[in-house]
């Protein structure tokens, strides 16, 4: 099964003349990129995502207007290419005369922030709990899984709503609530993956070699369970953005002047027939972001899972 491909990253980090060339971080990165770049969709997704991140970071520099400035006399102005458009408001204005483009640019900050925080909280807690449940089994497992079943038994948005009602409305509380609602999915996924990996011979071999519970859990088993988790994380990034939007719509998430994409959608729904741009552009922004992240997640899985690598 030796590879004849000259780009084979193993050749670069291989051994020559019996001496060991240290596997540097750089070589590993090169290897990762080699497999990642095999998937064109993933690369496009990565570039789009990086562009969105850049836009979010540079929002004050590129936005033509303040996101909360109301321009009197420019209510519901259509985009520039339509009749009645104005070059200083490229994507038009909303019902109170705010520039849609500027609001979208600033909105990228909120949406990405929500996604990142929710996913990282849900993933880290979910993986830890799932790992414990799947590894130790027994009573620990039963207690954890029944609690997760209870959380899953509620309609997720309703539960998030209740949590926000208890914690008080606001973006941070909404994120906590959404993370809590999403985390059982990670627990289940991790537990299932851990249980199937735990019985494999290589785990037993590591135990015979003297590996302790912590090492077996985190170094031997967990890396083999990441593929479904990465895909789930990518998918729930979008769910997080959408849930946050829904909470905003119900008055429990980001509060109205905040240019959050979901809140913008909610605010603009009454103009859907009169002024299509007010609804369409925030929707498109969410769509593009979510699509880019999903494509990227697919490529990540390909690159991180050696079972899928072509040798």
């Amino acid at each position, binding site marked *: 099964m030796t590879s004849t491909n000259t780009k084979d990253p193993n050749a670069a980090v*291989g051994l020559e003349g019996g001496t060991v060339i240290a596997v540097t971080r750089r070589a590993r990165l090169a290897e990762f990129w080699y497999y990642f770049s095999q998937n064109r969709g993933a690369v496009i997704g990565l570039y789009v995502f990086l562009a969105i991140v850049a836009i979010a970071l540079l929002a004050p520099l590129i936005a033509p207007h303040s996101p909360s400035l109301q321009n009197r006399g420019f209510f519901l102005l259509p985009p520039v290419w339509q009749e009645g458009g104005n070059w200083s408001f490229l994507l038009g204005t909303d019902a109170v005369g705010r520039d849609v483009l500027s609001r979208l640019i600033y909105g990228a900050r909120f949406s990405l922030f929500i996604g990142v925080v929710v996913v990282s909280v849900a993933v880290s807690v979910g993986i830890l709990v799932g790992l414990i449940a799947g590894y130790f089994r027994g009573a620990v497992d039963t207690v954890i899984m029944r609690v997760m079943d209870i959380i899953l038994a509620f309609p997720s948005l309703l539960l998030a709503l209740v949590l926000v009602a208890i914690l008080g409305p606001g973006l941070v509380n909404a994120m906590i609530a959404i993370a809590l609602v999403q985390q059982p999915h990670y627990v289940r996924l991790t537990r299932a993956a851990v249980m199937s990996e735990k019985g494999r011979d290589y785990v037993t071999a590591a135990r*015979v*070699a*003297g590996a302790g519970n912590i090492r077996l859990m985190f170094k031997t088993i967990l890396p083999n369970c990441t593929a479904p988790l990465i895909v789930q994380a990518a998918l729930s990034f979008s769910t997080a953005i959408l849930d946050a939007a829904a909470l905003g719509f119900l008055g429990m998430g980001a509060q109205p002047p905040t240019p959050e994409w979901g809140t913008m959608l909610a605010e603009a729904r009454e103009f859907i027939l009169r002024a299509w741009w007010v609804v369409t552009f925030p929707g498109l922004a969410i769509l593009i972001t979510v699509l880019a992240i999903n494509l990227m997640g697919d490529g990540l899985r390909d690159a991180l899972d*050696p079972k899928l690598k072509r*040798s």
Partner: protein
Amino acid sequence: MSEIVLETRGITRDYHIGGGFFGKGRTINALKGIDLKVEKGKTLAIVGESGCGKSTLARIMTMIDAPTSGELLIDGKPVEIGSKGVDSEMRRKVQIVFQNPYGSLNPRQKIGDVLMEPLIINEKVPVKERRERAMEMLLKVGLQAEHFNRYPHMFSGGQRQRIAIARALMLRPRLLVLDEPVSALDLSVQAQVLNILADLQEEFSLTYVFISHDLSVVRYIADEVMVMYFGEAVEYGTRDAVFSDPQHNYTRTLFAATPRADVDSIRKRLADKAA
């Protein structure tokens, strides 16, 4: 005077099954009192049909599972896995090679890391020495230096089994439990792996417990043979004694079921068929 590396005294192992909502649980006696002794540098072959307790015994000998009762002595020291954990000094004396070479290597670990992991866990040796020792072992089992940074999925079954053997030997164990190490490989590769095992046994003066259901392999490698049948040792003796004069009914059936491929027996079979 040879020393006894492995000794078991009346090892039993019960599995409790069920105990569900409706029925009472059953108890299955997987092992019913196994006594055996293996001298240093010798090979004990354990033969038996599927489900007779061979692998259960292997898991007990490698201190993965605790026996229900009985004593396990390694280098004359009793092992008590049930009450307190096994210390690493004891752990490293016994290593195991599994049957399925596709499941026994972590798919995310490069071969070099597979070989170095036992050293990282058990010994405080500098990185450089670790690499050298892993590389040395890799070459010893007949692989190349450039395999060091490859993943397991890039290897064939025979190569993987060599890697598994190399990993088991990294800690310089006294006893190697081989749980059907060649039954998943094709015949020519089986011979290679068996030869490597024989060479390594001589070089490191290893003691083998070789679990198999292939009698021709057993005849080739074993010094002593134990035949197991439903959790009991029905036959236990030197290879020649067992093969030439089987005592138990099951052993005779087992030998009779072995296909023979020498010319005389083929002629005889053809003659019988013609008659």
